[in-house]
């Protein structure tokens, strides 16, 4: 009885079996949605951060090295179950409300399967938490490389790292950065970011529902090892740099020293400066606000960002332009009664012999000589009018790298001030101005502003008799063995090399019998030019440019000390000490000048007003 019913039952069993097998075919083989979701859920990619390239000075002294920082991360989706929250709080030195706040924040902000719980955890806390990390399912550490520094020095050149920002992330072309990555924000860290950062590695692994690593994906076949960044060798001489920093102690000012033969920057100092260790990722939060408020502006890189009228240090340039433009020749003398008369105005000069040669005009810094030279040029028959003559003068300056960005690899470079003729048109009316209106430009005052970098570059041009290499702080990128092409090309000025010798003779006289003779250094031929820059806001700025030796020069330097007074009192001695330190580090002479070193080091030239302001700004009240 009812045996036929067995057949129906068999049929149903077979049909259900087939139905299930077909359903499995659909979700397993045909639809790849589930495989994709599964990987999203349980596959994690961990970035292996390469070691960032180290930074050395020109003598292979290590300056910048890596210092790991730890971020405590949460695996997403965040599922905390049975975690000893209070225990973790104690380890992290936070309280429960703080914990909850961080957890809520982590939940609201996740990125690629993870979320930051606490950043920049110290080595000590890291070690404590790591020991018990297996108890805190879902938490894991990410290790990244912060920077640390061997010397409290060179912060403006080195720059610093920061977290990559939204804009960087949007603008990047190669998808290299992820949120939270560190990137060079300033200085060589920024300029050579592409070399220093290295190549990130990748590690794929499975996680469980708590985000705990459950072993490699495809036996690590897809893993890519990280490739460390290229080390960077700077042209800085850290020893010279620190010596200069010491001399500028308690002063606002700059030193830029260049090797004229290569354009390599030997020292670049802006004083005051911040300790680079205070500006690394871990510490910047504690120091940045104070540094920003400090009225002496330690973050501001005066060496490349501050334009100063060059004052008398401009006279060699004016002489060179006059010679090239035939406003004067090397035998031209001008009489100087101690002033230059301009209608009813009088421009004062200093006491010196009445008749001045080109050389003496430099050595004794005669204003009259340059007023005459400038007038000759502005009124020359070569030019239809003053504007044309001015434009020609301006072009000469530009060929020295004045009034334009040099293209250096130091952050914050500015053009400085070099006005268009239209500026004077606006000021005096179109075509209604003559040499008389702009005569102070001839001795480096008025609407002219050079950064100490540009001043040093001028010294470099004179040392090279007519050309310069774009200054740069990179000496070698390890593993690449070349530096950017633009730093290897000579930039020629519009001055013929023959005109340099008389000017250099004059500059040499400055250190023999002129304004810097009192600090001559035996055994060293130095060509220099002092400058005392009028400062409407306070004491004059002290400036000096120089290079040495005269033949085959090895160092060109510019020094500016703000609100210090005469160029010969502060800037020149500092420059000479630095030149000596660089060229004759072991000189016996040098050690006998310890009093000079001490004087420079121990003089506090920061105006009292600013010192008081600084104390309130940084330390409160």
């Amino acid at each position, binding site marked *: *009885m*009812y*045996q036929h*019913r*067995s057949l129906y*039952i*068999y049929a149903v*069993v*077979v049909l*259900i*079996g087939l*139905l*299930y*097998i077909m*359903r*499995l*075919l659909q*979700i*397993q*083989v045909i*639809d790849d*949605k*589930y*495989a994709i*979701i*599964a*990987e999203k*859920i*349980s*596959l994690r990619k961990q970035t292996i951060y390469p070691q960032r390239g180290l930074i050395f000075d020109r003598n292979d002294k290590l300056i910048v090295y890596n210092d790991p920082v730890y971020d405590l991360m949460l695996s997403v989706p965040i599922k905390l179950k049975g975690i000893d929250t209070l225990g973790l709080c104690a380890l992290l030195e936070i309280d429960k409300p703080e914990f909850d706040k961080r957890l809520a924040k982590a939940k609201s902000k996740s990125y690629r399967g993870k979320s930051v719980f606490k950043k920049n955890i110290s080595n000590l806390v890291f070690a404590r938490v790591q020991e018990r990390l297996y108890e805190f399912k879902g938490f894991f550490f990410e290790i990244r490389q912060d920077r640390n520094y061997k010397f409290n020095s060179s912060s403006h050149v080195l720059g610093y790292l920061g977290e990559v920002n939204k804009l960087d992330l949007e603008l990047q072309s190669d998808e290299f950065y992820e949120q939270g990555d560190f990137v060079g924000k300033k200085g060589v860290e920024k300029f050579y970011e592409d070399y220093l950062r290295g190549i990130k590695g990748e590690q794929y692994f*499975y*996680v*469980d*529902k*708590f985000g705990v690593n*459950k*072993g490699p*994906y495809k036996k690590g076949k897809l893993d890519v090892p990280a490739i460390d960044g290229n080390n960077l060798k700077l042209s800085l001489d850290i020893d010279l740099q620190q010596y200069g920093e010491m001399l500028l102690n308690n002063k606002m000012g700059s030193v830029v020293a260049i090797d004229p033969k290569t354009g390599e920057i030997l020292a670049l100092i802006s004083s005051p400066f911040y300790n680079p260790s205070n500006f690394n990722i871990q510490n910047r939060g504690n120091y940045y606000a104070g540094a920003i408020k400090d009225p002496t502006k330690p973050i501001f890189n005066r060496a490349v960002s501050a334009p100063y009228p060059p004052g008398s240090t401009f006279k060699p340039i004016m002489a060179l332009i006059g010679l090239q433009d035939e406003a004067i020749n090397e035998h031209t003398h001008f009489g100087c009664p101690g002033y230059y008369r301009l209608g009813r105005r009088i421009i004062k000069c200093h006491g010196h012999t009445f008749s001045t040669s080109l050389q003496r005009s430099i050595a004794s810094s005669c204003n009259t000589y340059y007023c005459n030279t400038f007038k000759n040029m502005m009124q020359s028959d070569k030019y239809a009018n003053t504007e044309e003559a001015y434009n020609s003068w301006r072009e000469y300056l530009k060929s020295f790298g004045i009034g334009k960005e040099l293209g250096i690899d130091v952050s914050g470079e500015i053009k400085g001030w070099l006005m268009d003729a239209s500026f004077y048109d606006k000021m005096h009316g179109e075509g209604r101005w003559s040499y008389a209106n702009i005569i102070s430009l001839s001795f480096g005052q008025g609407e002219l502003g050079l950064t100490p970098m540009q001043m040093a570059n001028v010294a470099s041009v004179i040392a090279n008799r007519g050309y310069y290499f774009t200054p740069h702080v990179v000496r070698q990128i390890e593993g690449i063995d070349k530096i950017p092409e633009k730093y290897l090309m000579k930039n020629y000025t519009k001055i013929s090399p023959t005109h340099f010798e008389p000017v250099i003779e004059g500059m040499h006289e400055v250190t023999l019998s002129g304004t810097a003779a009192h600090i001559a250094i035996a055994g060293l031929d130095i060509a220099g030019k002092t400058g005392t820059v009028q400062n409407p806001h306070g004491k004059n700025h002290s400036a000096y440019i120089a290079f040495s030796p005269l033949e085959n020069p090895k160092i060109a330097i510019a020094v500016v000390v703000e609100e210090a007074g005469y160029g010969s009192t502060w800037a020149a001695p500092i420059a000479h000490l630095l030149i000596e330190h660089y060229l004759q580090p072991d000189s016996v002479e040098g050690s006998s000048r310890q009093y000079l070193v001490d004087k420079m080091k121990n003089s506090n030239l920061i105006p009292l007003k600013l010192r008081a302001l600084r104390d309130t700004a940084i330390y409160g009240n």
Partner: protein
Amino acid sequence: METKSRIDFIALFLFVAITCIGIASVYSATSEAGAFTLLEGRSGKQIMWFGVSVFLGIIIFILNAQFFEAFSMYIYIALMLLLVAVLFIGADINGARSWIRIGSFSLQPSEFAKYGTAFAISSILSTIGFSWEKKADILKIAAIVLIPMGLIVLQGDTGSALVFLSFFIVFYREGLTPNILVLGIAAIVIFVLTLVFGSLAFSIGTVLCLLVFYAFTYTNKKVLLPSIAIAAVVILFSLSVQFLFDNVLQSHQQKRIQVTLNLIEDNQGAGYNVNQSKIAIGSGGFSGKGFLNGSHTKGDFIPEQETDFIFCTIGEEGGWVLSSITILLFVLLVLRLFHLAGRAKKKFKRIFIYSLASIIFFHLMVNVGMTIGLMPVIGIPLPLISYGGSSILAFGIFIFTALKLDASRVYDLQSHYI
């Protein structure tokens, strides 16, 4: 009649093959990257329980087949008493009072109740003079099925209670009018349609169908009243389904059903298990990620992955190939058991083996259907595969008993009352 009593090797092979897949899957689902061997941990226990069932199987084979027939009602009663006992002395685990603690072991009487019920049903149905026409007989059968179902529901284990519905397959085979099955299927269809479209839309649809039906049959006055009556009953049923669903079912039960019907997506809540399970199985691809390489299994994303959701591990690590083979092995085992039932010369034996095949089929359909999203989440194990001593032991004994009954058929005379 000279053939000696011998075990059916095909069924035995299928039984052992499925058991082996089970042990490997439990090992994979529970071991931590080879932290222990197959013989340790839960896979070790699984092997042990299989061993115990083989040992008991040997005893079963030593026993006289007549014994089972003679003692069937006693076995049933003993197991029913155990079900009652569990209500009083059972350990409360996850809100269900289904386990009896014996030393370090937990026994789940509901797994054995199916075995006892199969005996009782085989016994009653094979009684001479049994008829589906007799009210007393139907009441007897109903009582035998409803007593364990009721007791198991009381334990809080609705899933295991539903397994007893598989006896309807046996009843149908043994002559129960198919109308009941038709009604049941109709009820399920109305139930689903009501939940999908709502009882109002469903009722309007029913009325429209009635009108269309009229348009073609208005000449025939005889169908008028019955069709109106049927429509009224259908609508009434639909309304009551809606009412029961909204007011009687608890919200997690509502959600489970809604998730199964794809009415709501709730991958974090009620649908979490099924969603993770589909992802695990779906990500297995054609040939799977390899033994012990299931990332979803290893990641512990699926709750109860070594018990109710063990099929995920098979699907993920063995891919379509192994999941299909597993289903195929089950289907073959069920069909083979049907075959053994068919060749039995005694009605008792036929019904008993049929019961086993029906129960295995029901478990397979519900359990695998649940993991691939074709069935609502009903917590019953996949026979011979899911981790669990009671389940392994109960099915082992069940199968060995069936094989014994089959093996002893050579001594049976062809019953006259088949």
